[in-house]
């Protein structure tokens, strides 16, 4: 059985970068697929990869991660202004982040506005 856990942005908004990473990685290590409202900062994404590498062992093989974020297309001055205001108001709350244990998720494909999540086959999971 796969467990999907939705995490509203409010749950991580007040946390430090370290706390955010610890919280998300903790859920993933609990074999849950996390669907986070919004996204981490770029430096938090690399910190998440670093922490993941530190914690890899025979049981925990790492994570699969994907962020969907609508790309801002260049347009008129009005549109750029509107985009900037939206960014200022919503910040990292925009978009969606999906992450889960590599032992459950084989691959996350992004194309670029849809996400396809491929799970590992059951036999392989049982073996682990």
């Amino acid at each position: 059985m796969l467990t999907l856990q939705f995490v509203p942005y409010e749950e991580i908004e007040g946390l430090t970068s370290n706390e955010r990473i610890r919280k998300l990685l903790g859920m993933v290590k609990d074999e849950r697929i996390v669907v986070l409202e919004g996204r981490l900062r770029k430096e938090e994404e690399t910190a998440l990869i670093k922490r993941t590498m530190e914690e890899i062992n025979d049981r925990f093989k790492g994570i699969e991660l994907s962020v969907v974020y609508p790309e801002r297309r260049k347009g008129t001055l009005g549109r750029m202004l509107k985009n900037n205001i939206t960014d200022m108001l919503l910040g990292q709350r925009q978009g969606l982040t999906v992450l889960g244990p590599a032992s459950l998720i084989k691959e996350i494909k992004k194309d670029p506005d849809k996400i396809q999540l491929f799970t590992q086959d059951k036999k392989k999971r049982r073996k682990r």
Partner: protein
Amino acid sequence: MLDAINKFIQKVLRDLFRKKKHVKLGLYGPPNGGKTTLANRICQDWLGEDMGIVSSIPHETREIKIKEQISIKSGKKELSFNLVDTPGIATKIDYEDFVKHGLSVKKAKERAKEATKGVIDAIKWLDDMDAVIVVLDSTYDPYSQVNITIIGNLQARNIPVLIVANKVDLKKADMKKIEAAFPQYKVVGISAKYGKNMDNFYDLLFKLVK
């Protein structure tokens, strides 16, 4: 506003640093994209020697490797840099994948451990780079989060980036997909293994670093 001031200070410091010392040119990307093959090609072209060992097993490069004072020339222009070959950045490392490539369990576990350390080191070194070549396998999907995270981090640090679409000699290569995925960056299609389109690559390297 503070972010803009911070970026400006970083740029000024980087420019000052560049004028004083050799530029640190980093090779970054996911495993098996051809970073070491490209490093070897550059070193062979300008020094007549290899830089590292290449293998079809992922995570062959597990330590940062530096080749100092490489000088390349194009007409009257000359560019000197220290080339930094980094381990491939990944979000997962499973020793069983190495076993599938024929390694013993013991060797596979050792390799996995070294590979995780290599990824951490590669990330730590990001801050030290003056310019970065992101090496992607043009037969693979460019929209992987690792690619986006690496390039996003370089952008946030204001580090100049050139994207190399490697392995264009292969039938499945799709350079246009890489260009579509990262429209804000210059993408050059090469075959580091066979030296295809390297002149164009060096021209763009001059533009990136100067």
